């Protein structure tokens, strides 16, 4: 075999090996993967009962923006919720979360935890603002508007002689304080007496409902969040107080809507949870791509009542179809 032939065979063989390697490994040409964003959503509850519409919006955005979501709930409802959330944040980041969507159990404590941890991933706050500089964006309901709308409804439907009890186990969130502040302000201006029941021994609010039914006292009860609202509605039903006690509140889930349809709940202040879920993921992806995001996004408040819940605008919010 002469020299040119040898060179030709060696070159041919080398080319074949190179082509083979190129086809079976990433050694020469890195195949470009479709980018998948890992986003962890950590909520302040042990179940997703009150997060169904939020999750629908979140899932819709996940499908559109190629996001792998890890939806994380708390282990229990102990007083250590902020500690649990902090540990979960650590775990999620170690597990590869590229962005966090957080509904803080306690905004102030969470701000401190984030400040201590200084996570290097974008943080999106939902439901409650977190006073931490590193929060990329916040998607929050217009609590004042919700409070005002609910106060107006109570003003239209209830006698001024009835006491209004506003109930929340804890008032650690600005959002609850905003709702209450507006509600109290508007109702007092209308001539109602408003009494806040919060931070007291467990059982206080239930005892209040029992006492009202035993004493045949007509009154108004307002749950300042969905869990408190559901508790109040259940107690009123349990003590056969539906004919005496009017029940209002904020937030919803399937049971609350069912009770409202059956006139066991008289009205609720709501926001568009579906949009909140969608925007949280959209903003997380935008932050990851270093795109501009709105610092704070305030979502409109709405009033829903049993007779209006199937109107077009409200049914879109209460029963969203992706």
């Amino acid at each position, binding site marked *: 075999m002469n020299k040119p032939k*040898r060179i030709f*065979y*060696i070159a041919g*063989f*080398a080319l074949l*090996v190179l082509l*083979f*390697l190129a086809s*079976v*490994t*990433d*050694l020469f040409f890195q195949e470009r993967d479709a980018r*998948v964003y890992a986003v962890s959503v950590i909520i302040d509850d042990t*179940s*997703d009962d009150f997060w*169904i519409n939020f999750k629908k919006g979140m*899932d819709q955005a996940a*499908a559109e923006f190629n996001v*792998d*979501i*890890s*939806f994380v*709930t708390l*282990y229990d409802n102990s007083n250590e919720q902020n500690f649990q959330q902090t540990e979960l944040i650590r*775990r999620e980041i*170690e*597990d590869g979360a590229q962005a966090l969507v957080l509904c803080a159990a306690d905004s102030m404590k969470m701000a401190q935890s984030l400040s201590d941890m200084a996570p290097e991933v974008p943080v999106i706050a939902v439901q409650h603002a977190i006073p931490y500089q590193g929060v990329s964006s916040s998607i929050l309901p217009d609590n004042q508007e919700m409070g005002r709308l609910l106060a107006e409804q109570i003003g239209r439907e209830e006698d001024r002689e009835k006491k209004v009890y506003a109930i929340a186990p804890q008032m650690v969130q600005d959002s609850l304080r905003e709702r209450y502040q507006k509600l109290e302000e508007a109702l007092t201006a209308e001539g109602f007496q408003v009494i806040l029941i919060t931070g007291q021994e467990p059982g206080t609010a239930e005892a209040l409902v029992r006492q009202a039914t035993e004493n045949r006292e007509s009154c108004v009860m307002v749950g300042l969040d969905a869990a408190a609202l559901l508790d109040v509605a259940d107690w009123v039903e349990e003590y056969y107080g539906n004919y005496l006690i009017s029940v209002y509140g904020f937030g919803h889930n*399937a049971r609350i809507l069912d009770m409202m349809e059956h006139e066991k709940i008289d009205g609720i202040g709501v926001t568009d949870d579906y949009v909140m879920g969608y925007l949280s993921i959209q903003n997380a992806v935008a932050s990851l791509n270093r795109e501009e995001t709105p610092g704070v996004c305030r979502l409109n408040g709405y009033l829903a009542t049993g007779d209006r819940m199937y109107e077009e605008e409200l049914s879109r919010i209460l029963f969203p179809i992706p």
Partner: protein
Amino acid sequence: MKKIMAAAALLAVIAAAAFLLAGRNGGEKEKTSIKVGISIYREDDTFISSMMSSLEAYAKELEQEKDIKISLDISNGDENQNTQNEQVERYISLGYDVLCINMVDRAEAATVIDKAEAAGIPVIFFNREPVEDDMYRWDKLYYIGSDAKEQAVLQGQIILDALERHPEEIDINQDGILQYAMLEGEIRHQDSMVRTEWSVQSLRDGGAMPEKVTGGIADWERAQASALTEQWLTDYGDQIEVIICNNDDMALGAADAVARAGLDFHNIVGIDGTPAGRQAVDEGKILGTVVSNLELHAQAIMDFAWAMAVGEEIDTEKWPLIDGKYIRIPQEIYIG
């Protein structure tokens, strides 16, 4: 020739090194988390949604016990098999470790199985049983659910027991024949067909002489059952002595209609033992139900998912496998 051999050897060394590098890049990391993709046929089915709540609670317990993150993603198939297939594809593309599927259409399991098998991801079907042939398409397929025939026989037993205790309350017209109305689940659904057939057969076997007054398909739904029962109460009135329902949601729907009509009638039986169903039994709105232990369902699904995801053996003492594929969750009568 020597030079050719040397060049070939050099290239072979390069190739081997490339394979080694490629192997190292794609090698398995130590597992710090497992991802379980769950798709349910419909999110507003009370039995399934209660099961999912139990599943999430048990996954948290397991997560703390094993110190490995368990990520559950639950999707709603929304009664559309194409939607469910897309959800399965998404889980596969995101590299989930195991799939838990509550089929929208039990006859379409082959599509899910083929996709999962191609990706090497095990599948645990639950509550809606795929056809037997499909279950044997691959060895990493399991089914967890209750035995529909056993449920129906127990449901019949509730009526027979009540008939024995208080015949005048069940055989209201005292004619020795049990006039019944039947509320059925989905058309063509295996559990629906089996429950319908065997609840009546068990009454016959128990000597109750059942006679069908009317019946209809309410798709497992409370609202549809309520509407149908309302119509029957108008059309047949007190001819109906018992309302047999394929599940608790429909039994609750029948009870709703009875309450609206202001009747003192509670000869309604359900199946599933959902929290709402058991509450209705306690309140005397329905006669009884068959409890299919939700917690056990959830534990079985999660234990299997865990074993599949981390490559452990299935604990067959805790979960005895039938034909190497099936887990049947035990059930019992609940009459309050």
